[in-house]
C-alpha cells in the first residue's frame, strides 16, 4: 500500500495521538472485559480507528457525527468525553447515557456525537435528519454518518442516499468496509461486492473509495468532500477499506475460528497506522504523547470504577422528555 501524503509535523502528531488514544482505549477495554465489570456487548474498533480519526480531523466542532454499535472510535475522534464513555460501559450514573445505553449506544450531544445505534443501518437516516436540520439552519454545518459494509445492504441505506441527494443534504456517508458482517464475508452478501460506490453514484451521490489504509488519504478525501458539502453540493459517499483485528463482538482475536485466517489480517497489521505514524514522530514527543494517553485512560478507568451506580428509581426516569 503506497503511503505518501504530505502532512505537517503537527498534523502527524495530532493524528497519531488521536489514533493511538483510541487504540489504547480499546485495548484497555479488552483487558478489563474478562473481569465482567463491563456488562454490555462491546464491538471494538481496533484496526479501523483511522477512519473516524481521518474524517473527524476534517470536521468542525459544531458538525455532527454518529455511527453504529461499533462507535467508540467515532465518539472519541469527535471529541466525546472519555470518562463518560468508560463510565457508560461500566453502567454507572456518570456515563454519557447515565448507564442506560452502554457501549452500543454512546452519544455526547455537547460535542456533536449524535448517538450510535445497534440495529444495523438505523443511524443512516437519523444522521440524514440531522443534515436536514443543519441545512435549514444555514450555518454550513455538516452531518457525518459512519456505517459498516453490512449496513449498505439495508433498504434504508439506499432510501437515504436518494433523499439526501434529492434534497442536497449536507451529509457525508462514510462506509468502513471491513469485508465482514459478523462472520459473513461480503461476497456472500453482495452480488457486486466492489459496487458500493457505483450504487451511490447511480442513485446520485458522488462516491470515492480509499483502499490504502492511510489516515491522511481518508482525511484529505473527507476534507475535500466536506468542503463541497458545506458549500451546498449535497451528500457524498466515501468507502474506506479496513480490517477488523478482533472478533465481531467481545475482546478477543478470532483467527482460530474457521471463518477467516490470520494471513488475511497480516498485511493490515503490518501497515498499521499506529506504528507507522509513531515512527514518524521523534521519540521524546512520542513518549510524552503516549504517557499522556496512558494517564488519561487510567484516570478514566478509575473514574468509571469509582463512580456511583444509578439509583434504582433512575430506571423510571427519562422515558418521556
Amino acid at each position: 500500500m503506497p503511503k505518501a501524503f504530505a502532512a505537517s509535523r503537527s498534523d502527524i502528531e495530532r493524528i497519531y495521538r488521536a489514533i493511538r488514544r483510541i487504540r489504547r482505549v480499546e485495548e484497555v477495554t479488552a483487558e478489563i472485559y474478562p473481569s465482567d465489570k463491563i456488562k454490555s456487548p462491546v464491538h471494538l474498533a481496533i484496526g479501523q480507528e483511522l477512519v473516524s480519526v481521518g474524517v473527524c480531523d476534517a470536521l468542525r466542532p459544531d458538525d455532527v457525527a454518529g455511527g453504529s454499535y461499533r462507535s467508540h472510535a467515532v465518539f472519541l475522534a469527535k471529541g466525546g468525553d472519555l470518562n463518560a464513555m468508560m463510565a457508560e460501559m461500566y453502567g454507572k450514573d456518570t456515563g454519557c447515557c447515565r448507564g442506560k445505553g452502554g457501549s452500543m449506544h454512546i452519544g455526547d450531544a455537547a460535542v456533536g456525537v449524535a448517538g450510535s445505534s445497534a440495529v444495523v443501518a438505523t443511524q443512516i437516516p437519523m444522521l440524514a435528519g440531522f443534515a436536514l436540520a443543519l441545512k435549514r439552519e444555514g450555518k454550513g454545518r455538516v452531518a457525518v454518518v459512519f456505517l459498516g459494509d453490512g449496513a449498505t445492504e439495508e433498504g434504508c441505506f439506499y432510501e437515504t442516499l436518494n433523499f439526501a441527494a434529492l434534497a442536497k443534504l449536507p451529509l457525508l456517508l462514510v462506509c468502513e468496509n471491513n469485508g465482514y458482517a459478523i462472520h459473513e464475508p461480503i461476497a456472500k452478501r453482495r452480488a457486486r461486492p466492489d459496487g458500493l460506490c457505483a450504487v451511490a453514484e447511480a442513485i446520485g451521490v458522488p462516491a470515492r473509495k480509499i483502499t490504502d489504509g492511510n489516515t491522511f488519504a481518508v482525511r484529505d478525501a473527507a476534507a475535500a468532500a466536506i468542503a463541497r458539502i458545506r458549500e451546498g453540493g449535497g451528500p457524498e459517499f466515501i468507502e474506506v477499506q479496513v480490517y477488523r483485528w478482533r472478533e465481531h463482538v467481545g475482546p478477543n482475536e478470532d483467527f482460530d475460528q474457521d471463518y477467516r485466517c490470520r494471513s488475511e489480517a497480516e498485511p493490515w497489521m503490518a501497515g498499521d497506522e499506529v506504528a507507522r505514524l509513531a515512527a514518524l514522530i521523534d521519540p521524546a514527543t512520542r513518549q510524552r504523547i503516549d504517557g499522556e494517553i496512558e494517564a488519561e485512560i487510567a484516570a478514566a478507568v478509575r473514574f468509571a470504577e469509582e463512580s456511583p451506580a444509578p439509583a434504582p428509581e433512575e430506571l423510571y426516569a427519562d422515558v418521556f422528555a
Partner: protein
Amino acid sequence: MSSPEAPPRQLRYVEALCEAFDQEMARDPSVFVFGLDVDDHKAIQGSTKGLLAKFGPERVFTTPLSEDAMTGIAIGAAMAGMRPVHVHIRMDFLLLAMNQLVNIAAKAHYMWGGQVKVPLVVRSMIGKSWGQGAQHSQGLHSMFMHVPGLKVVAPSNAHDAKGCMIAAIRDDNPVIFMEHRLLYPTQSEVAAEPFTVEPGKARICTRGDDLTVVGISNMAQEAIRAAELLHEVGVAAEVIDPIWLAPLDIETIAASAKRTGRLLVVDNGWTMAGASAEIIAGVAERVDGVRARRMGFAPTTCPTSPWLEEHFYPNPGTIAAAAWTLARPAEKPWAPSPQSTKLAYQVQFKGPF
C-alpha cells in the same frame, strides 16, 4: 385557552387539523409538515391545504416512497431541534416505519440518557369502507401503545383533532396521531385560537348509570349513537372517549366502571392484545367485580366485499345490542332496527378513496 368571547364556529375535522398546522407553523419556525402527497392539489383531503403556499417548499414537502428512511430522517431532524410532522395516508404503511419508530424514536431520550428529545408527530389515517380492504384499513394504535416512550392519540371529533394536534406538535416526545377517514367531513365547534387537548385526559361524553362504554377513535361516535338508541329503551350508557391512548386515563374509566359495574370497550382495531384488552385489564386491576366485554374488528383480515365488510366493524346497532345484553343480562336480547343504526357521517361518505 379558548377565548370566551369568540362566537361558536363549526369546522370540519380536516379543517381543524389544517388550522392546527397553520397556527403552529406560524408560531414556531421549527415545525414542518412532510410526507407523500402533502403538497399536491388534494392536500391530504384538505388537511394540508394552503400550507405550501404560505410556508414554502422547505417546510411543506413530499418525499420519495421511502417510509423507513423518511421516518429516520424525521427522527434525526427532531433530535436536532426541529418539530417534524410526518404524514401517512394510511396507518398500514407505518408497518414500514416500525423499526425507526420503536427502536429509535421511542427509545432515543431514554437510551441516550436524556441527551436528546424526539418531538415528532406521525400522522396517519385509517381507511374504512368502499373496499379499502386488507392493507388500507388497519387501526394499529395498539402496537404503539405497547411501547414505552411513544404517545398515541386518536381524536374522534374536529375539536379534539385541533387541540390534540397542537398538543402533539408541542410535545417533546414522539406522538402517533391516528385519524379516521370517516371522521374527516364531520363538524364540531372549534375555537379559532390555538388551544390544546392535553395528553392523559379522557372525556365523558354522555352520563349514565347502567354501563360504561369506552369508544376509541371513530368508535366514540358510534358509541354515542348507540347510547342514543339505548336511551330509547331505557338504558343509560356513560360513553367515554379516552382521546389519548398513551398516556391512557384509566382512572377516569375505572371510576366510571366502578360506579356502573359494567364495562364495554369498543375499539377501531382488533381486540386481541389490543387497546380494548388494556382497558379491561387496567380496570380489572383497579376495581373488583366489573363485568366487562369488548368489541372491535372481527378477528379476521378486512375483506373488501361490502357484504362481508358490514360484519367486520362494530356499529351503533351491534354496540347497542351488546350493551343491552351486558346491562340487562336477565332480559332477552334486543337490537335496534337496522335503519336507526346508521350514522350521519357514514352515510355521507362516498368512495373511491
